[in-house]
């Protein structure tokens, strides 16, 4: 079965590639978009007042995605 056919080495290589891509994107973002302040404070309260939990919203994302595709 394919799932067992992937050796640890192959998976690590995939992870290395993904992280290398992330490092390069992070560098690019840092040069293109200015951000001043604290990254955690920056997002705090952005959805304040929405009467749902984080898990409920996360599950809602699936329905939103499906709705957009079917639109």
């Amino acid at each position, binding site marked *: 079965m394919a799932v067992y056919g992937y050796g640890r080495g192959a998976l690590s290589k995939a992870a290395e590639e993904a992280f290398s891509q992330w490092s390069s994107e992070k560098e690019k973002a840092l040069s293109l978009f200015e951000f001043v302040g604290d990254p*955690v404070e*920056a*997002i*705090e309260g952005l*959805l*304040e007042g929405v009467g749902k939990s*984080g898990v409920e919203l996360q599950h*809602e*994302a*699936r329905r939103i995605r499906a709705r957009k595709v079917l639109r």
Partner: protein
Amino acid sequence: MMSAYMVDANIFLEVELKQERGSFCKAFLNKLKRGEMEGLTTDFIVDAIAIVMEDYGKTWIEIRKLLVSLTRYRSLRIYTLSLVDRMMATEFMKLYNLDFDDGTTYQAMRACNISQIVSYDNHFDNMPDIKRVTPEETVE
């Protein structure tokens, strides 16, 4: 060695919601910001947060703020899922009855040899080789 965690979407969303759990999630994210713990999330998770924000009326300004903020954490990395990763996710759907998005999260954890996920979602509780922890447990 520092603990490494997969960070689920609901952790970021709780900080955005600023409810009771928000302070624990904030404390956890602050640890990632300062480099005291290692965190991993996926591009699929980031998209889920952005999509929810948009659906609740947030504009490109807030969505960009979220995205740019992710580059300011000292030890948070974003794993970009490949097509093969997505194929593997379907395998885990079959084997463990996971949803597709949970399957992608599990695949990213497997690829990066991470065995703990910080989440309030109990979907991962029956997985044999991963442990779900809450932010409260990580900041104690």
